[in-house]
């Protein structure tokens, strides 16, 4: 029995070692050259703002409305605002210098646990990759797509993308058991269409369907 345990341990270590080994560690400059992180944009920063139809299901509650995301080039900040159909501002989170702050938060959402989960979810799609420590980034090539892997603020991120950092899936691992899946769907014209965020262990999901984009030039 003991020998099986040893074989199991050796095999597990081997699998772990080979899976890590296939990720090639890159320096940040090379990464910048390869995928141009400065232009990294799941939300396509060429647009000034995006308006989504939103559905947030959290712990048995179902909220619908609009999510408005606006990028401010002046201070590189991003606002994420959730508005009910009747116009009530349910929350406004500001992402700046790799940190979130609560601008407004009302009703059910105004709880520390909920705020942390929502900010963590939105971090996956708005965070600035240039803030990630160089030695924690690696890239793996799989068939016709690549996986960008890094650890940031104790969480493991996996960005699945095609050429030009066209991200179609984000997988985030927080601790041993918590995982977050983000799927990003584009339409036939290669424009952002929908973003769906789901959790493995929390009854919380966010579904966003793009309604309108506003170009920087407008």
């Amino acid at each position, binding site marked *: 029995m003991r020998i099986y345990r040893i074989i199991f341990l050796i095999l597990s270590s081997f699998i772990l070692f080979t899976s890590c080994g296939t990720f090639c560690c890159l320096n940040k400059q090379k990464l910048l050259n390869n995928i141009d992180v400065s232009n990294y944009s799941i939300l396509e920063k060429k647009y000034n703002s995006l308006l989504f*139809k939103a559905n947030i299901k959290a712990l048995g509650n179902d909220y619908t409305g609009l999510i*408005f995301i606006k990028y401010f080039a002046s201070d590189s900040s991003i606002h994420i605002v959730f508005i009910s159909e009747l*116009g*009530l501002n349910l929350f406004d989170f500001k992402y700046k210098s790799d940190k979130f702050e609560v601008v407004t938060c009302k009703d059910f959402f105004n709880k520390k646990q909920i705020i942390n989960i929502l900010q963590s979810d939105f971090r996956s799609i708005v965070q600035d990759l240039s803030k990630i420590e160089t030695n924690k980034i690696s890239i793996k090539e799989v068939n016709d797509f690549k996986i960008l892997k890094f650890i940031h603020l104790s969480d493991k991120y996996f960005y699945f993308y095609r050429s030009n950092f066209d991200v179609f899936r984000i997988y985030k691992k927080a601790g041993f058991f918590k995982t977050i899946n983000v799927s990003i769907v584009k339409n036939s014209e290669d424009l952002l269409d929908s973003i769906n965020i789901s959790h493995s262990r929390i009854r919380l999901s966010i579904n966003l369907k793009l309604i*309108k984009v506003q170009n920087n030039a407008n």
Partner: protein
Amino acid sequence: MKKILIVIFLFSLKFTIYSQNSSYTEIKDLKILENKIEANTSKINTIISDFVQEKKLDYLDATITSKGKFWFKKSNFLRWEYFEPYKYLIVINAGKFYIKNESKVSVYDVNTNKVFKEVNDLLISMVQGNIMFDKKFHIDAFENKTLYLLKLVPIDSNMKKIIAKTKIYIDKNDFSVVKVVMEESETDYTIISFVNRRFNENISDNIFNIK
């Protein structure tokens, strides 16, 4: 030169008219206004109106516009329907609050759900214009040549956290609500403008049945 002078004259005339319309004087005796509103709303049995809702986020330099239509029938039937930016429907019918989002219909009992009771009362009194009889607000009233302006500040501290102030503009001719402004803060507010208002037209009960 003559054309320029005409343009300047027309512009200043327009500005003068605007200034006159926008300058309000306070109504000291609210009871007189209450009686006028009560007398007129009692004559109105149905209202049909289009509306434009503008969510203003001045601090983000953004406006989000929604458009829709509502049907109201005395005393507690309302269909409040959004067509833009997407279809969304609220129906109040016989003590039930229905929300239809895409094909999904959610039903809430107004009498057992406090939040929906508040929303129900607010929507009904807002479209009717008799919100000034609601004791949940401190009310100041103003008037200019064409409009009454009611400024409502919630008395309840929990309500204050949601809406700091509501302004209701009422047409002096027909006592209908022309515009509602719900202020969450000075730089975050929602303007609902009612256009193409029609009164006392026959509305089928089917309008308030949701499928």
